[in-house]
């Protein structure tokens, strides 16, 4: 399978702190790769680098062999990489449907003038955006459907907000989804649903997915491959079982045995 997203020797430092150091990572088309690691390992920074929020100090980021480094974030999204956020960043005062419709900006082009004049082309495009939003929201079953469309996003429950954020990301037309702790704060039932959902995103939606997660049930349930980071460096890569039992990973999470004193 072709490498869809590829990071080569990526580095990033903030002040004196080297947050990511010489990292190589790739995601093949249709793969689900999980990134794990203790807090502060540089996982969210990784997402920020890929999506253009930060610029890497060194290295390359390639989407289908096209460099993403230096491009403004909105363009990277248009090229095919969309993300969700660890701390949820919805457009709270807009309706559920509007949140999703807004993300379709990059794949539409009716300008201000055409909007004022309500040209047939613009109206058609609006209908298409509308249908697109409904389609993306339908992915989540009944939870974000019907009466929910016109409710402001702030009225949603926490789990629904997470789902909405994913729906919004899919509306951008991206092929690669970066999900930042999608199961954070969810109870076991919701976690199970999210796991199924991510799998469904790949099978039915055809998305290539890079997931940051702490919940090992989710990681185990969905990953084709797992990458473990610690202090900005890759310390293990492989299947879930390989990584979970890797001594370096265990050490990163649990620490080393104290040397016995004599």
């Amino acid at each position, binding site marked *: 399978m072709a490498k869809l997203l590829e990071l080569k020797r990526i580095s990033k430092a903030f002040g004196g702190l080297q947050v990511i150091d010489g990292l190589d990572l790739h995601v093949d088309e249709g793969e689900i790769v999980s990134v794990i690691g203790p807090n502060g390992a540089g996982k969210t920074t990784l997402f920020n680098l890929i999506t253009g*929020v930060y610029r890497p100090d060194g290295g390359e980021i390639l989407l289908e062999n096209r460099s993403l480094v230096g491009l403004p974030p909105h363009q990277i999204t248009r090229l095919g990489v969309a993300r969700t956020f660890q701390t949820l960043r919805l457009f709270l005062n807009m309706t559920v449907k509007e949140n999703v419709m807004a993300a379709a900006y990059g794949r539409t082009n009716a300008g201000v003038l055409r909007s004022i004049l309500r040209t047939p082309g613009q109206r058609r495009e609006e209908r298409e955006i509308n249908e697109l939003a409904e389609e993306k929201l339908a992915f989540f079953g009944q939870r974000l459907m019907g009466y929910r469309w016109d409710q402001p996003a702030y009225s949603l429950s926490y789990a629904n907000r997470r789902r909405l954020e994913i729906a919004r990301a899919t509306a951008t037309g991206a092929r690669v989804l970066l999900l930042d702790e999608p199961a954070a704060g969810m109870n076991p039932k919701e976690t199970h649903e999210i796991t199924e959902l991510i799998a469904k995103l790949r099978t039915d939606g055809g998305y290539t997915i890079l997931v940051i997660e702490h919940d090992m049930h989710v990681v185990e349930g969905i990953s084709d491959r797992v990458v473990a980071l610690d202090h900005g460096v890759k310390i293990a890569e492989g299947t879930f079982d390989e990584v979970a039992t890797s001594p370096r990973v265990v050490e990163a999470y649990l620490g080393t045995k104290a040397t016995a004193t004599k």
Partner: protein
Amino acid sequence: MDWEKLVQIIVNGTTLGSVYALVALGFSMVYGILKLLNFAHGDVLMVGAFIGWGVLGRLGGSLDPTVPVVLLIALMMVASMIGGGFLGVAIERFAYRPLRNAPRIAPLISALGVSFFLQNTVLLLWGADFRSYDTFDLVDPFTGLHVGVLNVWIIRLVVIASAFTMMLGLYALVKKTKLGKAMQATAFDREAAAMMGIDVDKVIVKTFFIGSALAGAAGVLVGLVFGQINHFMGFNYGLKGFTAAVVGGIGSIPGAMFGGLFIGLAEAFAAGYISNTFKDVIVFSILIAVMILRPSGLFGKAAVSKV
């Protein structure tokens, strides 16, 4: 090379800069703690100027003061500082505190409202005429420092000296006292400070008091040096003070002091050598340049926020 003109400009610039620095300090302190630009700050300066003028009038006026000049000026300063301080506290309590958790735009609009209210209150009660401190009657314009090309009227020295003393006092307060530490902590992370047992509300009140007291004092200084005050004067000093705070690095006390002097000198040089009517344009351009090239100011720390 007209040395006398150059010296005069430097003196003017330093005097002006000292006033701007005092205003900038108030802005910086409040911004550091509340992340709020206190639009009404310039009007506190204006009120301070009027308080000083009021005290001057009560004590016989410039022509025939009933107390020695030094004491008179000291009383004017103290009155304006106390008045300004309490005004600042009232503004915080009634116009900003209810909006701690409101959308960001709310305290800004509230500040505009307060500013409007203060200006027009003074206009209503004291009229639109310029009031004069008549400083020439109070202090003979020829008393001062006269050394070679240096001809500095003593009032300007008084202004510079008072401003510097207050700034040093403030610096000592922030660095050496417990209150100062509390202020720094609250500015850094309000919630964490509260959890560490700091009474955040009290710290904020005290910060406002000090910052506004400085503005009040600056008002009297302005009155002494420039003679004329009116209800609208706060606006300009507010803008310049803000510029100084940003140029120096908002949230930083040495930054505000430096920024004030920088802007004051820049204005004086612009007025003296380029154009007096368009000196504000030049100051504005400096502000834009700093904001674009070095947004955290000359002394400020770049804010890092977690995405």
